[in-house]
């Protein structure tokens, strides 16, 4: 048997040997740590950035000797992934290979909901859409058309919609996800947290996660930086009713009673002020409203919070001290999917205030100052000015929202005599609204009132079943898209180019948007026939070119202005009313909302019911990946997590299939497997979002597991910005024997 001594010799020899076969190999360095970076495997790789989730990591698509898709790996230069994709990105090959993909344009031939379509040519599909849109525009105005979008192609459909005369471009990533966080931080620091988050996790000394399950959400850069923080010995504090993966990596886990986080946050503010643990110089120099805050939290002691949160007072104090000692290298993480209980903006305000007191905004190990590359827009005619917006329909509501609300558009689609305009047409790009918006009955009611529903997707999702016209997009592996720009430590751009020709009769978004524009007489807004020429023009303005980007995939620019962090004694003008960090939110006060966050008790589950919590699994993105052959191979259904005490009470056994029923009598469409685990509290259950598909064309995932969205009929709307709180639903178990009884 060979010894391990041979092993390394072979490696070294191999590297030397490869230098002949692979002329681009540089001198192989000291040890086996720097892999692919040195080897370009011929010219068989093309750059891309991932479309499986919003993190948009840049990488390389490799083909094998036969020219077939082989693998996708990260680009070492990319700040989003540092050369390492997450399981979903690595499994992106499955999106291309999925045999259930949409294959050709479809036009509905029967009523909505019944999936009777005929195959159509692209020209037929575009003519159908253009005629309908023109009619709607004539009769109701172009503003009655809305675009819902998630993903890269949205850019070009947005241009189309604006050119058509509608400002209604809604992203469910706002009011169904991170909107409250952005509003809270904008109204405290004058800037949002943005995406990817500006959290300086790699250099932090103390990371506080509140319901944020990094590691189960594979927000790649954050997962990687948390790993670095673990290596560096950072203290991690996780607040979660569930023993999450992140909780298991934490020094402290606070198993909080669900829906009481705001009380804990306020008690922490109380202790930090009372024990003077805050960054005095920073607070004095940069903030306003300290006196008002002090008076506000006076009675919010750890003892007060104990009764609400079930976290003992000495633990609350100890955690506050840990944060104080780490200040300013501390992150009270704002999370991402934060639409929970309807007072989410206020909860996130408390998070923002804590960070302000600890002096972490603009400081190493806290929140850095990101910079974004700016890609020039191609000159085109001015967009027409819309005569009305969704705000006209909701004059006094959601005053602090700075984006179009997906749920707002949905509500304003349901005919109501009090409204001047009801939406008549939706264009839905890459978002499965049936599973994205809570209260499915409401969404379906709105859809039924539409004159036109166009869905653009790569897969037949639930929403495509309701479409009048389905436009099949090719996957990101088969197309160019807009240049990726996003805020990060350095400005950076990334290119996506096709590695393979589109399978089936599928097309990229740019081509679709431009062809539609041509039909509608809006061609002037798309001056370039080919996206390659558009990208090349844009890239040349940035000092590079399409040819160069095809070779390197990612280009990093130097920061133009200043450092990642505030310099000592730097004068900073914040984008708030007062120009200071507002501990006391003056904009909230102007709009008639609490300028300082107040705790309000939320409804609790009735006897025999459990709070429905939901979250992510690292190998799936929403409902988007649940049919991906590589990723379903890792996880093909979700389960409902039940505490052993609860399971005993109900006589549940592991792996038993049951139905769930919520407080409004809504029963899960499909059965779900029971997972009995100590990792969940006895007052709540947990399931991974994105399963329980009832779209039969998704052959691999149809009927597998249960849909949480299906059970979220009660929506707790945030009065400040319209976010849809989804954690106020309670479920009970229906076992087979009970079903027989009823």
């Amino acid at each position, binding site marked *: 048997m060979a010894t391990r001594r041979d092993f390394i010799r072979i490696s070294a020899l*191999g590297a030397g040997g490869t230098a002949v076969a692979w002329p681009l190999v540089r001198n192989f360095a000291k040890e086996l740590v720097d892999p692919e970076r040195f080897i370009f495997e011929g010219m068989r790789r093309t750059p891309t950035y991932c479309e499986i989730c919003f993190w948009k990591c840049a990488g390389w698509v490799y083909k094998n000797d036969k020219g077939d898709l082989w693998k996708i790996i990260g680009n070492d230069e990319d700040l989003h992934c540092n050369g390492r994709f997450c399981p979903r990105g690595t499994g992106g090959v499955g999106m291309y290979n999925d045999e259930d993909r949409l294959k050709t344009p479809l036009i509905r031939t029967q009523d909505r909901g019944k999936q009777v379509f005929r195959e159509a040519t692209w020209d037929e599909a575009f003519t159908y859409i253009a005629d309908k849109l023109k009619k709607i525009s004539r009769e109701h105005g172009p503003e009655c058309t809305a675009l819902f979008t998630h993903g890269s192609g949205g850019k070009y459909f947005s241009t189309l919609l604006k050119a058509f005369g509608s400002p209604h471009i809604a992203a469910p990533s706002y009011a169904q996800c991170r909107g409250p966080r952005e509003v809270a931080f904008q109204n405290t620091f004058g800037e949002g947290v943005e995406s990817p988050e500006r959290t300086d996790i790699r250099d932090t000394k103390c990371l506080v996660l509140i319901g944020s399950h990094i590691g189960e959400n594979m927000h790649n850069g954050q997962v990687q930086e948390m790993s670095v923080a673990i290596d560096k010995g950072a203290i991690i504090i996780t607040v979660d009713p569930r023993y999450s993966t992140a909780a298991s990596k934490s020094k402290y886990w606070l198993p909080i009673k669900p829906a009481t986080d705001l009380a804990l946050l306020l008690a922490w503010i109380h202790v930090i002020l009372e024990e003077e643990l805050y960054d005095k110089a920073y607070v004095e120099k940069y903030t306003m409203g300290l006196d008002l805050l002090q008076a506000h939290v006076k009675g919010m002691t750890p003892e007060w919070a104990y009764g609400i949160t079930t976290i003992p007072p000495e633990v609350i104090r100890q955690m506050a001290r840990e944060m104080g000692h780490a200040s300013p290298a501390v992150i009270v993480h704002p999370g991402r999917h934060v639409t929970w209980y309807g007072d989410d903006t206020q909860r996130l305000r408390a998070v923002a205030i804590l960070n302000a007191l600890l002096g972490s905004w603009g400081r190493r190990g806290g929140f850095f100052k990101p910079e974004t590359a700016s890609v020039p827009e191609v000159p085109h005619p001015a967009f027409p000015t819309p005569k009305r917006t969704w705000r006209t329909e909701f004059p006094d509501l959601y005053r602090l929202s700075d984006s179009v609300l997906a749920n707002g558009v949905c509500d304003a689609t349901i005919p109501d005599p009090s409204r001047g305009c009801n939406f008549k047409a939706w264009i839905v790009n890459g978002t499965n609204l049936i599973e994205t918006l809570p209260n499915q009955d409401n969404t379906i009611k709105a859809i039924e009132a539409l004159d036109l529903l166009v869905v653009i997707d790569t897969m037949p999702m639930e929403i495509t079943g309701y479409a009048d016209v389905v436009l099949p997009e090719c996957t990101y592996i088969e197309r160019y898209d807009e240049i990726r720009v996003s805020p990060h430590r350095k400005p950076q751009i990334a290119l996506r180019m096709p590695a393979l020709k589109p399978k089936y009769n599928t097309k990229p978004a740019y081509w679709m948007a431009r062809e539609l524009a041509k039909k509608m007489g809006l061609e002037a807004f798309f001056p370039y026939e080919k996206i390659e020429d558009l990208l090349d023009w844009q890239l040349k303005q940035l000092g590079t070119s399409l040819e160069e980007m095809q070779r390197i995939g990612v280009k990093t620019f130097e920061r133009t202005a200043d450092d990642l962090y505030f310099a000592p004694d730097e004068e900073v003008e914040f984008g708030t009313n007062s120009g200071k960090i507002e501990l006391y939110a003056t904009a909230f006060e102007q709009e008639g909302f609490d300028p300082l966050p107040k705790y309000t008790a939320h409804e609790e589950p009735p006897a025999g019911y459990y709070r429905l919590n939901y979250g992510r699994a690292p190998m799936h993105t929403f409902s988007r990946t649940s049919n991906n052959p590589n990723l379903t191979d890792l996880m093909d259904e979700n389960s409902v997590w039940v505490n052993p005490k609860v399971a005993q009470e109900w006589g549940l056994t592991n792996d038993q299939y049951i139905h769930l029923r919520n407080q409004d009598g809504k029963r899960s469409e499909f059965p779900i497997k029971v997972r009995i685990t100590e990792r969940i509290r006895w007052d709540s259950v947990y399931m991974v979002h994105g399963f329980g598909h009832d779209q039969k064309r998704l052959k691999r995932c149809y009927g597998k597991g249960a849909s949480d969205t299906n059970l979220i009929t009660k929506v707790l709307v945030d009065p400040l910005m319209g976010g849809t709180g989804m954690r106020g639903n309670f479920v009970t178990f229906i076992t087979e024997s009970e079903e027989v009884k009823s």
Partner: protein
Amino acid sequence: MAVDTRKCVGCSDCVVACQTENSVPIGFCRDWVVEVTDGTYPTLELELRSERCNHCDNSPCVRCCPTGASHYDKGGIVVVTHNKCIGCGACIASCPYDARYAHPDGYVDKCTFCLHRVEKGLLPSCVATCPTKCMYFGDLNDPKSPVSIMLKNRKYKTLIPEAGTKPQLYFLI
């Protein structure tokens, strides 16, 4: 190889990366993730670890292979020569780690530590892909290799040491 259980989040990226790199058919895998929970709420511990063939120094699979298809290759890596394998399954039965599977093409397949990559000076695919960088790979006889350094500085364990197979996959705890 050493796997740091303090950093592994159990995302299974190692599994997909291996599947694509080595064209492992859907439904099979050469590596996998194990989750172990201990304790009672709220006093809990959770261990996540990426597992694969232990490339044992005293491999029962090599000893029981009737054709010599399973053998020690370069550096002690345990490898199956596919065209010598008759698919009898003796090795599958003998492996205490359940690290082998019957490939639909009629042979037995398992982790090779990506020997084809290691020979080129690359890391095994799972190690190169892992977002948490929780895996360390290298020569255990070289005190400067990343894996030797980790084993020197950290507590570690092997799986089922009582089987006497001298496993070469270490878990940092």
